[in-house]
């Protein structure tokens, strides 16, 4: 469970994220959708306690992230696959995280296997990794502590079509077994395929949220048209989703059309 409650982050006069509220529930994949620079990464860093909030509060599993005792065992985080020391091998990077979390060494081998890195690749320095391999390493790092919640920023970037399919199945299975998934993306069709619920952000503000099905059906548009309309700031006169419906525009609360499987955990 992730709760963002009126999260705001200002840099001087610039409001990078303004009044963002949403929830991500166990058993569901929640897609966090928006164009580049919309505030997705800033919001995710605020959820993880890396970016101080200007106002508002974020909870993960009922607590501010910074109050989680051993967060890696509860929340798997991937914010930037490129943010690894290039001089460490993939295996060593995971071993450092595993040691910090207090996990047995064999868990490292397990996740390397799970994300489809070969032992040979895992023993190479990260410097030589493709973006796709870095994403797999980042996912491995996020899954290491067997968390209940996943927070992933653009995890599909750099993956080939087979990798994207693999990622989709992985996230679906994770949610189906009761986990909470929040993933950001600007890849609309990817999000449409994997997410049960979608939060759309544009210019630092939430412009729509609801179930994927409702967002698409109520607007009568496909997700791409809806996305471009909601986030462009140009075509403001186009029809917006009905404000009272499950796909309500801001400041709507959590969707009323919440699927019943949310309480799997």
């Amino acid at each position, binding site marked *: 469970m992730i709760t963002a409650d009126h999260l705001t982050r200002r840099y001087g006069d610039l409001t990078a994220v303004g009044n963002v509220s949403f929830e991500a529930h166990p058993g569901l994949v929640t897609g966090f959708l928006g164009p580049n620079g919309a505030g997705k990464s800033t919001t995710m860093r605020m959820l*993880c306690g890396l970016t101080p909030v200007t106002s508002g509060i974020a909870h993960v599993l009922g607590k501010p992230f910074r109050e989680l005792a051993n*967060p890696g065992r509860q929340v798997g985080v991937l914010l930037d696959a490129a943010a690894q020391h290039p001089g460490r091998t993939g295996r060593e990077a995971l071993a*450092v995280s595993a040691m*910090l979390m*207090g996990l047995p060494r064999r868990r490292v081998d397990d996740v390397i296997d799970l994300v489809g890195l070969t032992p040979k690749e895992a023993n190479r320095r990260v410097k030589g990794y493709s973006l796709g391999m870095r994403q797999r390493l980042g996912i491995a790092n996020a899954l290491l502590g067997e968390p209940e919640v996943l927070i992933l920023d653009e995890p599909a970037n750099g993956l080939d079509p087979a990798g994207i399919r693999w990622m989709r199945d992985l996230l679906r299975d994770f949610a189906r077994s009761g986990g909470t998934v929040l993933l950001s993306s600007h890849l609309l069709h990817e999000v449409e395929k994997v997410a049960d619920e979608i939060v759309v952000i544009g210019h630092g503000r939430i412009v729509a949220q609801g179930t994927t099905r409702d967002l698409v059906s109520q607007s009568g548009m496909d997700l791409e048209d809806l996305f471009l309309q909601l986030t462009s700031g140009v075509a403001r006169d186009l029809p917006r989703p009905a404000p009272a419906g499950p796909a309500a525009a801001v400041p709507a609360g959590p969707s009323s059309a919440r699927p019943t499987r949310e309480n799997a955990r």
Partner: protein
Amino acid sequence: MNTIPFARLTLVEWRKQLDTRSGRWLLISIALLIAAVLAVMAFIGDVATTFPALFFGTSTPLSILLPVVGILAATSEWSQRTGLITFTLEPRRTRVGLAKLTSALGSGVVFFALAVGLAAAFHVAVVAFTDAGFAWDLPAGALWGGLLLTVLWMAQGVAFGALIQNSAGAIVAFFGLPVALALFGPMVPALRDAMPWIDLSTATEPVMYDAAALTGNQWAHLGTAITIWVLLPLVLGLVRVARSEIKSA
């Protein structure tokens, strides 16, 4: 679920000093340089072959290279962007900073012991291969004074790294600022009289030769200089680490 024990955090930070090729080579090159300085003193130079002379000879390579280990331990989270992972696995960032400090001090102590051992080994070699006799007479105050200085350099390195959060900038500041003070301090009337109190290198010099022989006045000079160059940057650095935004770019 239990919080991460501080000892484990410290061991992880220690591992991170050692598990990259650049980190390992930095430590290996420090050891090699100490050995090289001792070899030159023992067998090529013409005077300094007593154990105390060799021991004092190790202090220059230690003081120049070891703090870089502390600096890089702190700055790598930013320069290599690993902070995104480190500070999500342990969001209590002050604990991470203190673990970095502790592990860097540990490395300092290990290298100090190594320097003492190498100085002793080279002295034995000098006696064995030349007609020189044993000369072990080193004041105990020089030993623990040297250890104290090593600890100070490491702490100062971590402090500058945590405060500046950029490897090149922290290294330049670490070595450049004291030189700038030594150069310009005596020219500025307001600073001239205060120099013994604020110049760390002159304040630490008597500690190196025999810390037990320091006068009260010298301890006072040392205290203020350490406060300015080590404690203050360390506190400001830890505060900056705790409060700043951790980003990938």
